[in-house]
């Protein structure tokens, strides 16, 4: 999918922070956060377009997780605000699903794969037949139809993370926010999960906001890359990724443009 939600595609290198998108689903205004005296995030302004896949990339410890928590309503930012569908976020909004990094601790070991996916739907008051169908559909989407009766701890790391993704999808969100979702799996599984994400996103037309420290991953997946850097961290640049779609692990990464974007992001976040 092309980055059609970004208006200034003719100047991909200079996507200015705060540049408006035509149909924003999330708007971040003057966001900043401090833990006591220590300021972690400062003056963040950006918008996420409906249907967009945006990666937030930055070195470890830059404050990516804090940003994610502020964006999802899990943490109240000390400055500024985040709007979801035009409304200010106070708590995690209904139309937003989160996939956490630590899949082994974000799934319930006492619930089967199916029940893990079903539980949020039960809480939402969905009827039994409907919620089971929805959950099975989501599990099919991530290729786990044969493992609905298994328990998370019987599955490999990559499969557990797919359960977590299915749980997010079954929730029928407008936006899926992912916190370094593929950081704890091996390289091959990681590539598989990246492609799975691209497919699912294409298929369901959801907006994805993904936090990662992996520059290749960010460039490979994104319509736009938000590069975080500095102390306190601010937006280095909001970069439009003008790579053709559909993306493919070998050919896309072999493109000269991929290498250019990759080094550009690298310089952006390493530059102190």
């Amino acid at each position, binding site marked *: 999918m092309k980055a059609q939600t970004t208006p200034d595609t003719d100047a991909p290198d200079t996507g200015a922070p705060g540049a408006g998108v035509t149909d924003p689903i999330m708007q971040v205004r003057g966001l900043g956060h401090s833990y006591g005296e220590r300021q972690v995030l400062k003056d963040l302004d950006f918008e996420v377009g409906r249907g967009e896949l945006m990666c937030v990339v930055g070195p470890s410890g830059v404050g990516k997780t804090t940003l994610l928590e502020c964006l*999802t309503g899990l943490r109240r930012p000390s400055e500024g605000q985040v709007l979801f569908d035009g409304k200010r976020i106070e*708590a*995690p909004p209904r139309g937003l699903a*989160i996939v956490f990094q630590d899949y082994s601790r974000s799934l319930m070991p*006492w619930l089967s794969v199916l029940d893990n996916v079903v539980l949020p739907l039960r809480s939402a008051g969905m009827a039994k037949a409907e919620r089971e169908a929805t959950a099975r559909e989501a599990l099919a989407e991530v*290729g786990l139809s044969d493992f609905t009766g298994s328990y998370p701890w*019987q599955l490999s790391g990559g499969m557990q993370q797919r359960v977590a993704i299915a749980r997010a999808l079954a929730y029928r969100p407008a936006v899926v926010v992912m916190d370094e979702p593929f950081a704890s799996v091996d390289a091959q*599984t990681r590539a598989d999960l990246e492609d799975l994400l691209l497919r699912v996103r294409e298929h369901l037309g959801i907006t994805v906001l993904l936090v990662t420290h992996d520059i290749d991953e960010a460039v490979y997946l994104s319509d736009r890359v938000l590069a975080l850097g500095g102390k306190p961290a601010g937006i280095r640049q909001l970069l439009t990724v003008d790579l053709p779609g559909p993306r493919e692990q070998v050919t896309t990464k072999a493109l000269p443009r991929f290498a250019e974007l990759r080094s550009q992001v690298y310089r952006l976040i390493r530059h102190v």
Partner: protein
Amino acid sequence: MTGTKAEPSVTGTKTERAAAGARSGAVPTGVRRLVNRLLAILVALVVWHLFALGPGASSDFPTPLESFRTAIDLAGTGAYWSNIATSVETALLGLALAVLVGLPAGLLIGANEHARRSTQLLLDFGRTVPAIALLPLFLLLFGATRDLGLVLILVSAVWPIIIQTSYAVGEISPQLRRVGRAYHLTRWHLLRHLIAPSMFPFVFVGLRIAATLSLLMAISSEFLGGSDGLGYVLLQAMQINDTERAFVYSFTAATLGLLLNLVFVLLQRRVLWWHPSVRKGGAA
């Protein structure tokens, strides 16, 4: 789809176990272990028999065979079984009482950091006071009744439950709490599917310790206080130097303890099957 790449590791463990079985030759490991255990018991019986005939003879120390005969005789009487029933009943009632008091107290203390810190000293004091030392006081207050046993059980078994429960509250993973918030789980679902299962492994340990203490205290209170039950008949047997009966009653008490332990092992497998300490196979 990449669905077929990884398999649940349960199958892996099965193959490992099969391989282990094959390595040990024709005799399966289970049978060998059983034979070894029976051998150990046989050796103990022989040592006991020799001791009873030798150094123990002067103090009427019964041989295993004599004890066995007495046990058969006693098992034929209704009194033997009703005494066991009385002791077990006291232990269970006392345990229920300790749970009724300890669980809510533990929840309250655990839910509040301030309460946890301010009750620390009290809890440490409570659990280190030997309940037996309070027996004379309780004997004055309650006399030689079942109430005495119940109170004694309460003041000894309530502590592990309080401590484990308050500890369990702090052990609910913050990550799972975030999941609960992010996916808008209802209060009931949070409690039923997130909080209770997270806490249960810890509470279970407290329950197990408390159960053992309950049985111990039930029999001790009968022995020292003189109300009906296994402890009391043991005391009577000792008073008339009936070592054979005293032996059988002591063994009965020990067997009850073993059975209690077995019950908890089975219970643990049933209710904590998903826990890393119980489950078979699968990565941690």
